[in-house]
């Protein structure tokens, strides 16, 4: 094979020593995953993000690696809203010590904003938005509104 024509072999993102690798994220949702996890430009995590990576199972997928942070169960489950096939790998000393799928939570608190401008959760009251997660969408437990499409667009 001609060397000039062959792709460069190697890892797209370097392995991490300790932390979390979120694999098999629905292609294009990596940035929303970061949003759900509260990771912004001003937070200090060391991150690697790969988008639209070739995947046998999903054709294309996104990957997020977060160093020195092991995700909690409730954080992981929120990811299921936008990436139901995501797999979470907890890494310690370069070894995968735990591998788990995501599970859609029954109740979401403080994750998505209610689209109803008249909802009490959109005021300065000391409550978090609270949605029950049902097959047909997210149901606001305060004002009864529904989010059925573009869930990622409503993430706080």
């Amino acid at each position, binding site marked *: 094979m001609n060397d000039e024509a062959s792709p460069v072999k190697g890892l797209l993102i370097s392995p991490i020593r300790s932390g979390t690798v979120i694999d098999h994220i629905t292609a294009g949702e990596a940035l929303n995953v970061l949003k759900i996890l509260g990771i912004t430009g001003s937070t200090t995590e060391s991150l690697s993000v790969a988008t639209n990576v070739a995947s046998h199972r999903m054709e294309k997928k996104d990957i997020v690696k977060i160093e020195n942070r092991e995700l909690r169960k409730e954080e992981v489950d929120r990811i299921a809203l936008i990436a139901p096939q995501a797999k979470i790998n907890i890494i310690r000393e370069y070894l995968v010590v735990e591998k788990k799928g995501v599970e859609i939570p029954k109740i979401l608190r403080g994750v998505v904003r209610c689209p109803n401008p*008249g*909802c*009490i959760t959109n*005021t300065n009251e*000391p409550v978090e938005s609270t949605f029950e997660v049902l097959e047909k969408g997210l149901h606001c437990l305060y*004002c*009864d*509104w529904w989010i059925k499409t573009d869930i990622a667009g409503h993430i706080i």
Partner: protein
Amino acid sequence: MTNHIISIRDYTRRDIDYLLERAGEFDTRTYDRHALEEKLLALLFFEPSTRTRMSFETAMARLGGKSISVDSVEASSIVKGETLADTIRVVSGYADAIVLRHPKEGAARLASEFATVPVINAGDGAGQHPSQTLLDLYTIRQSMPIDGINVGMLGDLRYGRTAHSLAYALSLYGATIHTIAPGGLELPANILHELRERGMEVIQHDDVSDIVAELDVLYVTRIQRERFPDSASYYNVASSYRITPDLLEDVQEHLMVLHPLPRAGEIDSGVDGLPYARYFEQSRNGVPVRMALLHEVMK
């Protein structure tokens, strides 16, 4: 049944039937007039109200209890920036139950989380108004079984919380709803969808005269000026429907015309003398229904 009364969606048919039975007992004038003698009710009304507020006060007084009240945002610590949550925590320390009217949807649900006494939702924005629904059902049940009736809902079905609550309740009784709303004020798609999922037949009409002859109940609601973003959009729809004696010429003998009141021209005063007009009786029924609710949460 919880000790809070927040949304009609929280109730089963059995719960509702129980409360309607209890209301019937308080309508006989043979009830214990001292039942709530030691109790104090706080009425927090952050939106204007005449009937709901006065009927709760009347109900409390008829059971021997006392009431304290706030009747506007301007007269409350809300103008100082106090949250509803704090107001509720404070008032919980004063009263044995709280009746709350608030412009934000979900306010009563929030209040129930911070209150240490029962909260009764007396209307939250365009959301829910469960005690109104109970008195609507109570009024219907005085004349006919609720099961399987044809109910016309006319008016502002988008912002009309009384229509929303009543529709949910009627879905427990196999009723059919015929909606007639001006453009832009139709029943919200989410509610429509949920009612149909509950197995309810909801049929949309353009003109009330197309369906009035088949109705058992015609539930008329006001175009709510206060819910409109501007006057122009209000005036566009404000005069688009009106119930007159002529319209009711060929209706079923037992038709009930109901209205949560106040009316703002949508029912001609000529209808008031017809046997179909039941809205003042409906308003009066607020007292026994609210007596039943107060007794239930504070007994």
